[in-house]
């Protein structure tokens, strides 16, 4: 379909002639009727950082899972060290020196650091045949030491910071002769200082000849750390180029496939009266002193890093977590909301970030999902009336849910259409205040664009919308006002005209520890 799928080998001649650690040739992977990756080429050279970028659903993780033996390609081949290879499991891949650090770390939170490092590995034994724990601890310290960190190896992993957990995962992946390490969004939950530490580890690895595949959404980091960049879009290979030949704007255009301003729909709103007001809201360990105002016909973007407490605040407003201090006002009246039911009575609806685990009843039909929250309203004497189907049809049509009739199982729909079902469910309840938590996560560009238009329409209709999003462009393009949280506190608030990437990021990260901007060549900052 897409012309000129240049395999990722185009510019290889200009760089060192070392054979690639691994190379994927024209690989295709399908899941049922969906083609996740089609005819993609990708190679990794020793000692390079090769960034893999693309929107959610572009096929990055699928591609790397084929390298790591989790999936076998339907078409095309995988070569390791120049020879065609087939991995039947991640164990094979690891034996061949290819390690992967998944986005959701596969650590055992209750076990100690040492035990985590040795899970599934050869454990040293004493001469009695029992585990030699002292030797294990020694090796664990040694390995962490080689990464330049000093951790208590007897501590359980759940007590470690996100960054240290990441390091344990890296140490675990590097057991044996790792020649390639795939890192999937390694910095998603790290602070800027921790990102620097990670970059230092990465540069240690590459100077030892290990190739690193770096999957990330953060373009700044991509330019800071990587030698080459490969862009995927909708499962297709778009380009592979040295990082120095690309700039951020070009990269975004390649990823999205069209200029950003065509993706977002934004018409002028005239915010009205205050619909939702939060004053001094706090809950120990999650957020404190949170002040927030959302007016009718207003989209307020809530930005911040993962773990900044944004979802927690929204969930407190929705009655899932009870706040310990502060107050919530709806239309000027102080309310105490103790359950989602109570929140819905007040006209609030929260659209959760995890579509499959929190938003949908997967065994249900599209219809039953859409009407889930209004059954008690439309029921007569406790029974569901026949008009239910018309209601569901109306919302399915209104949100242009495609891929089946409303009586088909919701599990058959694509991610974007499933997300529309989740939105339809909330809109059926006719809320006046919508709390949207990452409403476009993991869906394709087309569906994204439709959802942006929908959000814009809802604001025009007079709904008050709180838009929680980790995608800066989304927040900046859609919001009338941007509120930024960091470590449970509000750290910035910007009107539509003052909000820009720089200001929002500064507020989100505390303005210190920022990585060097692209092009300054400060790849591995020294650590005192």
């Amino acid at each position, binding site marked *: 379909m897409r012309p000129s799928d240049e395999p990722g080998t185009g510019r290889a001649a200009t760089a060192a002639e070392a054979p690639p650690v691994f190379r994927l040739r024209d690989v295709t992977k399908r899941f*049922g009727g969906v083609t996740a990756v089609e005819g993609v080429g990708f190679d990794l050279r020793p000692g390079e950082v090769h960034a893999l970028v693309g929107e959610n659903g572009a096929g990055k993780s699928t591609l790397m899972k084929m390298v790591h033996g989790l999936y076998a390609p339907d078409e095309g081949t995988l070569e390791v060290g120049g020879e065609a290879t087939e991995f039947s499991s991640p164990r094979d891949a690891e034996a061949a020196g290819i390690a992967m650090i998944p986005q959701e770390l596969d650590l055992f939170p209750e076990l100690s650091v040492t035990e985590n490092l040795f899970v599934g590995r050869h454990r040293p034994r004493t001469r009695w045949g029992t585990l030699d724990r002292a030797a294990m601890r020694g090796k664990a310290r040694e390995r962490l030491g080689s990464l330049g960190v000093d951790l208590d190896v007897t501590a359980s992993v759940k007590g470690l910071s996100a960054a240290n957990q990441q390091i344990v995962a890296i140490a675990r992946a590097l057991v044996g002769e790792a020649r390639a390490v795939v890192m999937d969004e390694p910095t998603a939950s790290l602070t800027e200082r921790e990102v620097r530490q990670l970059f230092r580890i990465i540069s240690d690895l590459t100077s030892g000849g290990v190739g690193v595949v770096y999957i990330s959404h953060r373009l700044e980091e991509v330019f800071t750390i990587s030698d080459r960049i490969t862009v995927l879009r909708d499962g297709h290979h778009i380009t592979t180029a040295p990082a120095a030949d690309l700039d951020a704007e070009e990269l975004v255009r390649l990823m999205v496939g069209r200029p950003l301003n065509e993706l977002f729909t934004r018409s002028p709103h005239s915010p009205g009266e205050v619909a939702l007001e939060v004053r001094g809201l706090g809950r120990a360990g999650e957020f404190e002193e949170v002040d927030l105002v959302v007016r009718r016909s207003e989209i307020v973007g809530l930005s911040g890093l993962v773990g900044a407490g944004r979802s927690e605040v929204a969930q407190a407003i*929705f009655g899932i977590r009870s706040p310990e201090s502060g107050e919530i006002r709806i239309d000027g009246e102080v309310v105490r909301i103790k359950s*989602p039911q109570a929140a819905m009575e007040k006209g609030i609806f929260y659209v959760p970030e995890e579509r499959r*685990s929190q938003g*949908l*009843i997967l065994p249900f039909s599209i219809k039953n999902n859409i009407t889930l929250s209004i059954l008690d309203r439309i029921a007569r004497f406790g029974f569901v009336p026949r008009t239910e189907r018309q209601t569901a049809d109306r919302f399915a049509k209104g949100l242009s849910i495609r891929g089946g009739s409303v009586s088909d199982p919701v599990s058959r729909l694509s991610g974007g259409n499933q997300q529309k079902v989740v939105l339809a469910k909330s809109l059926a309840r006719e809320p006046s205040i919508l709390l949207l938590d990452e409403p476009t996560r993991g869906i394709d560009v087309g569906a994204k664009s439709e959802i942006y238009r929908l959000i814009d329409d809802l604001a025009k209709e007079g709904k008050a919308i709180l838009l929680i999003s980790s995608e800066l462009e989304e927040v900046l393009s859609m919001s009338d006002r941007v509120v930024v949280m960091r470590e449970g506190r509000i750290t910035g608030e910007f009107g539509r005209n003052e909000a820009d990437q720089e200001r929002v990021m500064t507020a989100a990260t505390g303005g210190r520890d920022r990585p060097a901007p692209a092009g300054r060549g400060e790849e591995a900052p020294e650590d005192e």
Partner: protein
Amino acid sequence: MSEVQTPTPAQSGANGTVLSRWLVRPEAPALVFLAVLLVAFSLSSDEFLSGSNLESILVSVAVLGTIALAVNQVILCGEIDISTGSMMGLCAVAAGAVATSTGGLILPLLTGVAVGALAGAANGLLVTLGRIPSIIVTLGMLYALRGVILLVTGGTWITGIPDGTRVLGTGSVLGIEYPVFVLLILFVVMEMVSRHSTWGRNVFAVGGNRRASRLAGLPIDRVRFLSFVLVGVFVGIASIIYLGRAGSVQTNTGTGLELQVVAAVVIGGTSISGGRGSTLAALTGAVLIGVILNGLILVGVPGIWQDAVLGALILLAVTTDVLRRRLLGDKS
């Protein structure tokens, strides 16, 4: 779909869809298996297919089936109830005691239902407000209620249940024996409630994804609480059928019934992890158990084989369910 024999090639597409749609229904394998067994047993025993034998099978599973219809709802919403054996015993003791002093049907029935509902409510409260896993709560209740039976009766039997009370076990209406009649009525009621009531829908939702149900504002505690109370009510009704059929109550009445009930529900095709299943599945499972126990005897298999066969059947049912879902459900 290639295994389908269709009259003309032109129809095969449509028939294939209808068939595959039917095959994904939860109770489909159990119904197929039931049909196979009916054929097999009727070929190897002349008595098996006689009307009176078929009715006696249904009569024999009336208690089991009635309770399974309610426990089905508990399992559908992601919980489990293994206290029904002792609960049935206690309901029978209470109803039997009332019956021997007052006679009649209504008062003993109300007593049995009330005792069952109370026990079910206790289960429901401990599971929802107490946040204790239902398997633990109902295991505790299984022992506790058996203890209450022993304390109340002092170990003696209740005998001499008057005929007026026994009508649900011995009489018949419209040519159908009462136990079968009650079972079928309750089946129809549960089918309606499960398919068309908001509570019935919510049971599937809570079992299918409790977290999403909570975020959608469903009253997940009330939904689960009511399903436990429903079990109590149905156990109460079943205890009157039992009284009628047995004419007496022993201290070990209902022992082992709780697991047979769970087996019936699971064999019928309701998923033990909740969210998937049907009322017909529970009924099918109960009938299947009855057919097997009855058929084995008629074919001359020694009674000592019963448990082994039943156990194998449960494992077979669970395995088929997994295989079938891999073949049909995960296709798209």
